[in-house]
């Protein structure tokens, strides 16, 4: 099969988007933007989830969504006023709905008691008298009798019992219709005229009819007068139309909602009362025919098979002249029929969904292509072929092409960080609830694009940082009031691109880091020696030490002592860095910086002590040959380089990475002026520069182990492995001085 399964997968993907829309809309309402559009969008999101879930027989989900939707419907029709309390309830309901969706997907469970309580709470808003039933589980609520979700059975071996017989019985007796004349107020006539697109998008008229049947007994009358003969039938075009007599207490709006999913793919007319089929069809014809002035004298009515005036073919997928002559005994029918509307099958949807594995494979291959192209270029270089020769120029073009392919392939995998960000408002609500804090999440840069592999691994660190910000950063509402702050704390989550990396910032306006306490805890736990003098920044960074936890009590939220050091390690594993800035009383900012992609990098290839290293180009500001008079000694071993009007520390990469024990004079080498993540500059000394090259990143952690000062490795054109320098780590290594294993300080712990 798994056609049905595939549709289900698509449905859940859509659910994710819908849930995000729902939450986004509710948050906008919380911020006071409760205009009609927002409320409608929120309603539509829940309604769409319900509709799709109904089609798959996801009963608990449908039931909950129904209650939710009912309240939203009342809200959008202004039956109940939108208040902050209501929005808060709706937000919590959206969380429960998300749980139902996850459960339906087989991920996790729904707390049915909580769901029932939530449903009761929602119902209490629309119908205060329903509060009495609050204790009863949703399933037992009498309102939902007859609200049986439809089960579409595929060929997946589902029980036959699933099929067809759960549905509300329909009146099909013609005699019954006569009796109904007296209650015409409840009777509607719904004309359904599907377009070919409806079927092409895997929608189904049968489902629409079933949905209608939920509103009340239906009697569908089919009109197949536009149906061509078998030979000339386009099996994928829509010809047949329906007129449905529906008896329901619900209004036109409810009927229209049934067709919300096929909006645009189905012509619809809803009239109150009984309507002769011909009338309805005629009115539809008026809509469909673009030029009423066109000669309509064509004797349509002579079509022998027609019981009523037949409309022209609804959809003709072939060009008009191809409209075939009809079988000999019905000569007048088809040629006379003027096509009401010509539908050419479209090229399909503009979005394609691709198995990520295929893209990963493509990216791997492109990586190999880049390496191969580099090897080729190197060989050609070795043969001493002139740069102006055809071969060399051809190679240049190849390089250009390779790069374009690579960019395009990487763009396929780039995704906005939104997919991770959208999970966070709920987290913030829950954590704030648990800790008794009031927190508002402000998000920025949700559309910042990052490689998918990076996005997937962002969720955990962000989750942890947010929890931390609320649990440890924000004060309780009372404390905040006492400090003259808004009792509601603000946590800001932002994503931005900065020098070829993605930066994630989590900022709170809480109390800031209590440095005294952090220091005393670190000393007490033996993480640092008591006589060490640390800068504020160094104290702040103590919270990243393994085993450090400032919480006096272990809370549900954070503070199990596996906190920030785990975050730091997982970020480092991604080639990223995390830093913290804190101001007492004003709050803290955690900054996480990661490479945009884990696949390729533009780098400067340099020689250091006979080793080839790659320095990420994004870090390099300029390269220069230092003059002796620009170099000033600093301290016993250090020196600085005067660059224009400032001094930057000179770092011999070979010494830092222990390639050599003594630095050659910097004037003999080349200096690369680099800028670290925090904006600090340093002058890295290398022996020689080979040039700029695009390199494919191969993880060192996966293939060997993490090496301080080295971000990753790559394979060069000649097949040798070269290490990619972690510029920030090198700057930090130099700041700390040479490591000493016997010293139980911050340095050793790091």
């Amino acid at each position, binding site marked *: 099969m798994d056609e049905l399964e595939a549709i289900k997968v698509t449905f859940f993907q859509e659910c994710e988007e819908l849930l995000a829309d729902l939450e986004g809309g509710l948050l906008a309402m919380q911020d006071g933007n409760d205009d009609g559009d927002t409320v409608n969008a929120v309603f539509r999101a829940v309604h769409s989830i319900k509709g799709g879930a109904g089609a798959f027989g996801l009963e608990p989900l449908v039931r909950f969504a129904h209650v939710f939707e009912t309240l939203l419907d009342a809200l959008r029709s202004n039956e109940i006023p939108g208040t902050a309390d209501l929005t808060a309830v709706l937000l919590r309901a959206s969380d429960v709905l998300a749980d139902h969706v996850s459960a339906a997907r087989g991920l996790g469970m729904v707390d049915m008691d909580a769901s029932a309580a939530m449903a009761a709470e929602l119902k209490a808003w629309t119908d205060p008298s329903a509060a009495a039933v609050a204790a009863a589980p949703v399933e037992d609520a009498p309102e939902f009798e007859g609200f049986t979700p439809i089960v579409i059975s595929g060929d997946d071996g589902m029980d036959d019992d699933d099929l*067809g017989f759960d549905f509300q019985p329909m009146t099909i007796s013609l005699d019954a219709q006569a009796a109904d004349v007296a209650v015409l107020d409840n009777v509607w006539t719904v004309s359904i005229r599907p377009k070919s697109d409806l079927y092409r998008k895997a929608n189904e008229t049968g489902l629409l009819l079933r949905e209608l*049947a939920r509103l009340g007994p239906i009697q569908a009358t089919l009109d197949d007068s536009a149906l061509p003969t078998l030979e000339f039938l386009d099996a994928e075009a*829509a010809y047949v139309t*329906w007129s449905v007599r529906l008896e329901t207490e619900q209004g036109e709006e409810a009927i229209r909602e049934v067709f919300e999913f096929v909006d645009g793919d189905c012509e619809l007319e809803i009239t109150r009362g009984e309507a002769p089929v011909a009338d309805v069809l005629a009115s539809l014809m008026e809509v469909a025919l673009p030029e009423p002035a066109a000669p309509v004298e064509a004797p349509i009515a002579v079509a022998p*098979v027609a019981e009523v005036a037949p409309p022209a073919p609804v959809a003709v997928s072939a060009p008009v002249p191809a409209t075939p002559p009809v079988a000999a005994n019905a000569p007048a029918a088809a040629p006379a029929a003027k096509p009401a509307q010509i539908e050419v099958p479209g090229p399909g949807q503009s979005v394609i969904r691709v198995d990520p594995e295929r893209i990963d494979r493509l990216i791997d291959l492109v990586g190999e292509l880049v390496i191969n192209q580099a090897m080729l270029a190197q060989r050609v270089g070795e043969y001493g072929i002139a740069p102006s020769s055809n071969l060399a120029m051809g190679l240049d073009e190849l390089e250009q092409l390779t790069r374009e392919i690579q960019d395009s392939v990487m763009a396929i995998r780039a995704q906005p960080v939104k997919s991770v960000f959208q999970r966070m408002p709920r987290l913030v609500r829950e954590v704030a609830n648990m800790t008794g804090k009031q927190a508002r999440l402000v998000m920025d840069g949700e559309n910042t694009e990052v490689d998918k592999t990076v996005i997937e691994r962002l969720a955990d660190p962000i989750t942890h940082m947010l929890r931390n910000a609320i649990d440890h950063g924000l004060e309780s509402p009372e404390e905040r009031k006492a400090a003259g702050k808004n009792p509601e704390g603000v946590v800001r989550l932002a994503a931005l691109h900065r020098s070829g990396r993605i930066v994630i910032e989590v900022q709170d306006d809480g109390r800031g880091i209590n440095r005294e306490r952090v220091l005393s805890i670190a000393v007490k736990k033996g993480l640092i020696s008591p006589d060490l003098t640390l800068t504020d920044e160094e104290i702040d960074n103590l919270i990243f030490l393994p085993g450090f936890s400032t919480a006096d009590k272990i809370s549900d939220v954070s503070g199990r002592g596996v906190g920030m050091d785990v975050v730091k390690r997982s970020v480092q594993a991604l080639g990223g860095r995390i830093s913290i800035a804190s101001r007492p009383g004003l709050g803290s900012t955690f900054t996480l910086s990661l490479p945009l992609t884990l696949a390729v990098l533009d780098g400067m290839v340099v020689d250091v002590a006979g080793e080839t290293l790659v320095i990420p180009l994004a870090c390099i500001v300029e390269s220069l040959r230092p003059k002796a008079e620009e170099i000033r000694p600093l301290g016993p071993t250090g020196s600085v380089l005067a660059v224009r009007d400032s001094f930057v520390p000179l770092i011999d990469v070979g010494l830092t990475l222990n390639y050599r024990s003594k630095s050659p004079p910097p004037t003999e080498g080349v200096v690369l002026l680099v800028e670290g993540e925090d904006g600090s500059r340093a002058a890295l000394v290398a022996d020689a520069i080979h040039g700029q090259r695009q390199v494919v990143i191969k993880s060192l952690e996966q293939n060997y182990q993490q090496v301080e000062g080295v971000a990753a490795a790559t394979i060069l054109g000649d097949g040798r492995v070269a290490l990619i320098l972690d510029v920030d780590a090198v700057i930090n290594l130099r700041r700390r001085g040479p490591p000493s294993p016997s010293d139980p300080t911050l340095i050793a712990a790091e």
Partner: protein
Amino acid sequence: MTTAIALPETLDLKASGPLKQAFVERRGQDIEVHADQVRRLGGLCLQVLLAARKAWAEDGKPFSITAPSEAFVETTRLFGAEGALFPADYQGAAS
């Protein structure tokens, strides 16, 4: 001679083309349509069945739907197509 078509379980968008082809190939022969396996009947395949039914009627050849599954009967009714697809005696028996 009598030929037969066994309808698949799922009569959806994908099934409509092959179904039409199957009927076109059997045109001119008496036909039995076995509908016992059908669990899902969509609008497109319904159209093919309706067109086939008419074609056979035009040819004056017997066209019968045998042993329809309950799902098939139920959906046909939902579509309001039982009159067009089933002979009158069957309708009476089923309803």
